[in-house]
């Protein structure tokens, strides 16, 4: 709360710095902007950046590091008391101290040592905040002073401000990359632990998947087989069904929108299709589980076919509907990007509209359409909610869409809900599945991007 107030004050000061810098720049040339090297707003931004940026960076770093520092100091203060404790016990103790310090409920009535440590914890936090505020005030006022002193008509404020903005843009892009790298590393690290317990060959090529091993002696569990083939086969089956639904319908919708629909029709259909993409997948999920699944089972019964109420077909169909807008919207853009001159050239040769679409427009936009389909495939592979609700949990190795199958994402969910034990193969298997899934979708995305890039070269 106090930190929030501090940040608001800092931002207020920065705004003030901007206005003051701007005014000072104008005053330095007595209002004739042409005599300034940079526009007054750049001078303002220059002062504001000097004033706000260093202080905000320091506050951000401080907030990231302070808790860790305080905890270390607290623990070192009670080093005698915790000697001989295991890592788990220490972390439990620490959370007690933390809870006590913030006034929460603790696990048991606190010992005098914990009470003293909690007091010290609060004290150190307070001290840390005071130091941080002090540093921020010094940096802000120092920056303000320095920035204002630098203002003069010849100050090259614009290039400097732009350089800092470029730096901020760079940092923003790096954050996404670093996050991805972090996720991948954690996946790899945990998968490595998993492969220490389970043979990678067995995981990749085993035909039996039964990971729900018992965690306690009184539980009934699976056999602990980690052959992932049935799981990936299930993903493949459902993805294929989804694409069989989505690709033809999406493509034909795209052709209709791009080539035949009047502008009015198009302006109605396109947003309507995009609404389909905005429906939360959980809604599709219960639609599949509660409506489509039982419907298929009933239909199957009436013709004497055994259809599971959680069938790959139901999940795949609904997922296909969900993906239609991806295919149609991207393909529509690609088809629209085909130059009108090619259409005219074909029509002028006496081709009908549909011949033109079939023989000129679709071949010319094929690469883009393939890219759209591949993006849709990676979406289908990664989709979770629909299959969790509608596809079932049993790891059948089957190509029959009327049976229940399970998918990679469903298994990851089931492995990570309920009782956990972070060093059992059961839990770690989720990371291995995640890693393989990530690699598959990554490969598909790379292929898709390449294909799309190739398409772009066509007309340039």
């Amino acid at each position, binding site marked *: 709360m106090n930190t929030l107030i501090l940040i608001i004050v800092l931002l207020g000061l920065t705004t003030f710095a901007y206005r003051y810098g701007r005014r000072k720049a104008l005053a330095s040339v007595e209002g004739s902007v042409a005599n300034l090297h940079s526009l007054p707003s750049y001078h303002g931004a220059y002062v504001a950046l000097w004033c706000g940026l260093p202080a905000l960076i320091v506050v951000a770093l401080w907030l990231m590091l302070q808790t860790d520092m305080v905890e270390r100091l607290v623990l070192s203060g009670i080093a005698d008391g915790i000697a001989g404790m295991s890592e788990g016990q220490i972390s439990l103790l620490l959370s007690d101290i933390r809870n006590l310090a913030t006034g929460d409920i603790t696990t048991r009535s606190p010992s005098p040592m914990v009470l003293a440590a909690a007091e010290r914890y609060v004290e150190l936090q307070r001290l840390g905040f005071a130091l941080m505020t002090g540093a921020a005030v010094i940096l802000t006022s120092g920056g303000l002073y320095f920035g204002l002193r630098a203002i003069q008509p010849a100050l090259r404020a614009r290039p400097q401000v732009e350089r800092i903005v470029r730096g901020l843009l760079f940092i923003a892009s790096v954050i996404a990359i670093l996050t991805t790298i972090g996720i991948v590393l954690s996946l790899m690290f945990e998968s490595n632990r998993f492969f220490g317990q389970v043979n990678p060959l067995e995981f990749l090529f085993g035909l039996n998947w039964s990971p729900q091993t018992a965690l306690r002696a009184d539980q009934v569990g699976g056999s602990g087989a980690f052959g992932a083939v049935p799981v990936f086969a299930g993903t493949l089956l459902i993805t294929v069904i989804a694409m069989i639904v989505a690709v033809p319908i999406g493509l034909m919708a795209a052709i209709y929108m791009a080539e035949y629909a*009047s502008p009015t029709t198009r302006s109605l259909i396109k947003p309507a299709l995009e609404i389909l993409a905005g429906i939360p997948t959980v809604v599709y999920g219960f639609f599949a589980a509660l409506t489509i699944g039982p419907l298929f089972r009933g239909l199957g019964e009436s013709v004497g076919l055994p259809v599971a109420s959680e069938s790959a077909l139901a999940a795949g169909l609904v997922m296909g509907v969900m993906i239609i807008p991806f295919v149609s919207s991207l393909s529509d853009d690609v088809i629209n990007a085909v*130059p009108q*001159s*090619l*259409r*005219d*050239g*074909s*029509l*002028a*040769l*006496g*081709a*009908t509209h549909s*011949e033109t679409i079939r*023989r*000129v427009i679709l*071949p*010319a936009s094929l690469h883009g359409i393939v890219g759209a389909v591949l993006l849709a495939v990676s979406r289908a592979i990664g989709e979770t909610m629909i299959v969790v609700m509608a596809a079932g949990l049993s790891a059948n190795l089957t190509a029959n869409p009327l049976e229940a199958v399970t998918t990679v994402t469903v298994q990851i969910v089931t492995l990570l809900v309920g009782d956990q034990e972070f060093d059992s193969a059961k839990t770690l298997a989720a990371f291995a599945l995640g890693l393989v899934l990530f690699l598959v979708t990554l490969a598909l995305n790379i292929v898709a991007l390449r294909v799309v890039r190739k398409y772009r070269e*066509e*007309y340039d």
Partner: protein
Amino acid sequence: MTEAFHVENNPQPVEESVSGMSEAVEAGMPEVDAAHAPTKVKADNVDVFYAEKQALFDVSLDVPENQVTALIGPSGCGKSTFLRCINRMNDTIPICRVTGDITIDDQDIYDPAIDVVQLRARVGMVFQKPNPFPKSIYENVAYGPRIHGMAQGKADIDVLVESSLQRAGLWNEVKDRLSESGTSLSGGQQQRLCIARAIAVNPDVILMDEPCSALDPIATARIEELMDELRQNYTIVIVTHSMQQAARVSQRTAFFHLGYLVESGATEMIFTNPEDKRTQDYITGRFG
């Protein structure tokens, strides 16, 4: 105002004029006397509207067979619009409306019984910017014959592709790389490929909409030569911004201004002795 200089509708019997033509061809294609060539395309009182805006006003023009007719005039004067009426490419613009009569060989092309697809097979078109399909050179030329079922089997199409490329003067440059993309050619070659593509369906009339405006002078000269050769077999209508080009390649010239056909007649007459003051101002470079 529109019919300042009209060709008399040809009173001669058809056989006579055809034999006259073939003699002319044998004699190395001397300037055909414009007044005696039979009319191929005849426009009568054509008005064109884009939504409420009228783009062409009461245009009547006769295009004689086996000659090059040039349509000149400043930008926005309606010459391209008129050109696109002749193969009904204006149909592809929903807001465009055409009234009046246009006939080819005395057949009304806006008759509901006319199939626009067949009309466009008879009236080829070459566009301002070369627009080869992103297919192989071979497939570009084979496209038209295939959709019209003009050839049975690969051998027939091979023959058609070769003869079309030869007539477009491109065969020697591309015969060893027919499977390369049409878009890999130079601009001038692309435009000749488009001409080959148009003549592969064996049209009667070829419309050219500023075919050289995106080309360098050498490629332009090549296309102009080609036009002179092609007019032995085809009736050509060309829109051009270059008055020198109109003077070089055409036998007949029509001058458009602000949607009106101001004057039309033998190219020599238009350029040396125009009847209308506006034509004179335009060709002497006083506006446009």
